[in-house]
């Protein structure tokens, strides 16, 4: 009797378990950007980010010479971006403020476009919260702020 009980408890069929991994996007985060954009790269990328097209050669030459002819590079970059943003036609999307989800989508898309990465949770909350709390915070203000930040100068 005892022997029968022991045999019943000890004999199990072994399960065939397969372990899988979820797909993970490998992206550069802010801490890993250590290459300063060259003048040409900065101007070309900024133009593409705002207008969604390649900068015409003549404009690139003009901007490059203007960039080189001024010593305070941070100031000249801000001025270049301000001029881009003042063009009547650009591809900066409006912020859809109908829900927190649509705002989150705008913030995420903007980080992906300008910083080439997803925002972390804190970044997402901070920018989205600012948009929600202040109706005068526009997409253009967000774009200008991010494009004149230190991270935008690096890749």
């Amino acid at each position, binding site marked *: 009797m005892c022997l029968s009980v022991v045999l019943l408890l000890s004999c199990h069929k072994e399960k065939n378990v397969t372990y899988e991994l979820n797909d993970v996007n490998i992206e550069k985060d*802010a*801490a890993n*950007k*250590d290459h*300063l954009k060259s003048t040409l790269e900065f101007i070309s990328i900024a133009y593409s980010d705002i207008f969604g097209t390649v900068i015409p050669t003549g*404009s690139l*030459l*003009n*901007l490059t*010479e*203007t960039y*080189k*002819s*001024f*010593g*305070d*590079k*941070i*100031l000249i*970059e*801000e*001025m*270049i971006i*301000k*001029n881009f*943003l*003042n*063009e009547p036609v650009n591809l900066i999307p409006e912020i859809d403020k109908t829900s927190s989800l649509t705002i989150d989508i705008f913030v995420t898309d903007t980080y992906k476009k300008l910083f080439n990465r997803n925002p972390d949770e804190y*970044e997402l909350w*901070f*920018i989205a919260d*600012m948009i929600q709390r*202040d109706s*005068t*915070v526009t997409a*253009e*203000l*967000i774009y*200008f*702020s*991010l494009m*004149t*930040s*230190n*991270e935008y*100068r*690096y890749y």
Partner: protein
Amino acid sequence: MKRRKFLKGAGLAAAATIGVPYLLPTGRLFALTGSRKANHVVFCLFAGGVRNLESIHKQDGNLMPYTLKGSESISSDIIGGIDALPVNTGLTLQEQGTLYKEVRMKYGPTGHYGSHATAMTGVYTGQNLDINTNPQYPTIFELYRKHNSPSMSAKNTWWISNSLGPYAHLNFSSAPGYGPQYGANFIQPSSFVSEGGYDSLGNSRLYSSEEEEKIKAIRGFCDAHFASQNIGIANSIANTEEEKKEIESFINQCFLDSGQFADPWSLGGLYNNDMRTVQFAERVIQEFNPELLVVNMSGVDIAHNNFTQYVNNLHKADYALAHLWNTIQNTPGMANDTILIAMPEHGRNLEPNGIHDEYGREALDHTNDDMSREIFALILGPNGVVVQDQVFSEEKGESIDIVPTIANVLGFNNDIPGGLLSGNVLTDSFY
């Protein structure tokens, strides 16, 4: 009290008096030994390669009637190539200061960039000069911003160049302990305040102060996230936020006034790039009253292939220099409180290069011969500070003397670490 003890006590008291810094009502702190001769210096590199034969020695007549005394006629064979500028009816510049006729650039290649670097760092360059990088020794801007007390912001220092290329590197050096944090604002007006510049920057989005506050908050948040390893642009000077606004506003105003840049001196077609550069320097002087501004000209470098145009541009540079001095004297805050120093960066060869112009004159290069090392220097300033109408005809002074002289005028030459500079203060210029 014994005489010896009295003398010792008096000596200690005197030493203490000299050594203790003074706090002036303006808040400026400095020791007596660091007193200033003037509160502003403008250094005009009368550059491009000017031979003493055509300038100071007037071999083809007085081509510089605004600078030099004398009514020697311009040589008849080239007079047709010299543009008629307004006649000088006032004092010459040499009468308003001290003229050194025989200054030398003793060492280093007589190339434009290296000689500019020598004049602006006070150190002779070697053969291994890399024109693609900043100079290896501290520029006068960095010496001023690091050693002047109190330390001054970049808005007080300007390097205004009439061409790009390597000259854009001269607003700060790669010297350890110096660099962009002590550099000057640099601008090359002919590229910047131009049609191309206007196309690039003339349509700026203007933000309200409320919008700027929001931008500051968002950008500050982003920068805080990124501050762990990188802080902005490497190799760039940086103005403070407040001063950036002032400079941006000034530039936008320049674009609005861009019509004035076409011919602001009413000279018709005679207005050239040297004049345009000097005129922009005048705008900066009027707007910011900088304590230290360096501006250069280089139109005379056409001498490589056209002698007559070389002397014609020398003639125009003379006019531009006098215009600059006149503007300084009519600018509140700068008038009677500014020392203007003018000096070519190097000379030109004795022997011509065989290229003839339409007047039959041969062109001139600059390839390190003795004559290409011969230059002049002119120091102008208020009567009572700078010795007026004084001329040194014998050899005196070197191109490396300008930096220590500027430092002396602004009162910080004794604060520069020993061994950095080997030039001397041109003390004979001052009372």
